[in-house]
């Protein structure tokens, strides 16, 4: 496994889209790590005298209506973004793999009904799930994380289930079972490693969805509390001054777009790098496959 892993890393890094994705995601992580102990200014401290400063040496991206440094808010906000992406990823993994396993490895009637259920649940847009949960518990980042996790977990299940079924019936797994490997050993040694490529790709895309959902829901007032540094909250605060200071809205939007693009490209690159059927054929076959991301926010 380790040899082929090195090979797909090389393939990922030889693809311009893949490299861009890796660079953006690493940059996001670096900024979030840096922001935990340093930002140019305190992102929460208002400075009324210095409100609406233009971009310049003192404030690289300018200040907002209360004189807060926009760059500092964005840096601090990246931590919220990373936390939501990771949280949603963990839940999506748990939900997705459990549903996929239920739909692939259980008794025939259980797995058929789980398969139908997965197909139905896929139709529920993430944002509507989030609004439904918000109506009950009120909006919060936890709601964003759970709704993206559940919503995208179903997507992961839909893609991983047939993959699990396929591997389950492949010769080497049948052979492993015949030679006395237990169900659990089989799952961890043969099934999961073989589903991993498909699953990692989905995970990367689910993080893109999580970033968009956080921004959209925070904008609507169902995500991060208004006092927290968050890109979506900043977007909604700056919207009130859109007609007077249109430039300031540029920055949070660019930050969100770049991050979403990064996770999408990383997912695309991983898909191309891990899919063995694409290895021998030329570029057009590789580019002929695309995923259709869901609009979330």
């Amino acid at each position, binding site marked *: 496994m380790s040899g082929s892993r090195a090979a797909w890393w090389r393939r990922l890094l030889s693809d311009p889209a893949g490299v861009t994705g890796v660079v953006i995601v690493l940059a996001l992580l670096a900024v979030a790590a840096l922001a935990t102990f340093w930002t140019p200014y305190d992102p929460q401290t208002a400075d009324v005298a210095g409100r609406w400063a233009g971009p310049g040496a003192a404030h690289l991206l300018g200040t907002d209506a209360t004189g807060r440094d926009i760059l500092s808010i964005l840096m601090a906000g990246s931590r919220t973004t990373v936390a939501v992406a990771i949280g949603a990823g963990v839940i999506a993994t748990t939900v997705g793999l459990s549903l996929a396993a239920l739909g692939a490895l259980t008794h025939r009637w259980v797995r058929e009904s789980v398969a139908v259920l997965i197909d139905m649940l896929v139709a529920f847009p993430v944002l509507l799930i989030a609004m439904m949960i918000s109506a*009950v518990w009120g909006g919060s980042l936890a709601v964003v994380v759970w709704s993206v996790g559940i919503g995208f977990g179903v997507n992961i299940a839909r893609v991983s289930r047939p993959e699990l079924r396929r591997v389950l019936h492949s010769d080497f797994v049948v052979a492993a079972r015949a030679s006395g490997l237990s169900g659990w050993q089989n799952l961890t040694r043969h099934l999961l490693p073989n589903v991993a490529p498909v699953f990692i790709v989905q995970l990367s895309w689910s993080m893109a969805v999580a970033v968009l959902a956080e921004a959209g829901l925070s904008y609507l007032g169902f995500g991060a509390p208004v006092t927290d540094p968050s890109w979506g909250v900043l977007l909604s605060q700056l919207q009130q001054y859109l007609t007077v200071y249109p430039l300031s809205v540029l920055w949070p939007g660019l930050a969100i777009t770049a991050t979403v693009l990064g996770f*999408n490209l990383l997912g695309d690159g991983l898909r191309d790098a891990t899919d063995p059927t694409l290895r021998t054929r030329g570029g057009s076959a590789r580019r002929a496959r695309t995923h259709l991301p869901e609009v979330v*926010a």
Partner: protein
Amino acid sequence: MIRYTLMRLALLAAGLVVASVIIFFTLRVLPGDVAQLIGGTNSTPEQIAAIRERLDLDAPLAAQYLDWVGGVLRGDLGASLLTGTPVAAELAQKAQITLPLGALSLTIALLFAGPLGVISALRRARLGGTVIGVGAQTLAAVPVVWAGMMLVVVFAVWWGVLPAQGFPRDGWSDPGAALRSLVLPALTIGIVEGAMLLRFVRSATLQAMGQDYVRTAASQGLTRTRALIRHGLPNVGLSVVTVLGLQVAGIIVGAVVIEQLFSLPGIGRMLVRDVSARDLPMVQGELLALTAFVLLVGFVVDLVHRLIDPRQRESAA
């Protein structure tokens, strides 16, 4: 075909049941007392009792659910806790904004994604194709709200050619004014939604270009582009139809956010308002209506796909 239709209809019905169960029970699984939560901390015991009475909270959950579903089947989606307005009536009224907005968005998305997607596939090795491809990839990552804000800045603030917000008070009695206020919101959703559709059209076209029938037609004297247009594009169209259901779901979600940004009194804004106010009967009705719409579109899309794709017809016979 009849057998397929019946099977698909059963699936639609099952989907609606599952949706209604999920929506109903999620909105009922509250930590603590629903009535207390809706009434707020300052409400008197009498007010709480009144809310319990209105929502019929003392009945068993299953009975409450059946009661609600029974009402839905008779066209009664419930009524607002705060104003008493029937959900169905308000939905019908707000749909006069959201439906045209959605239709306009979808039209814009198709008009912009179709031709550009095919062109970017045909010219994939040239600069133009690459620019379109990269542009679509980037646009697909843009948050809808922000795209709307940027369009407002350009069209409303700088050029002043279109209204930045709002909808005429008297609705569609002045169709020109009403339409003008839908242009920017629809453009926003259409562009972002279209960027995703474009990537899909592009990959479907690339796939068609690699097919044997296109190569054969080209070898018989057609240019590759003509061969693709005559034999490949119908197949591209077919695969576009299959993702229309997903597109409609995306447009509904886009409308929720965009109606807020543009202060359009449609279904999306209504949902945001009612979720904020925790008007549970309203939220319940709205979510069911929206989900039912998405499922219904999926149903129609599947049937249409079956009808227009000759391969599927034969396999059904």
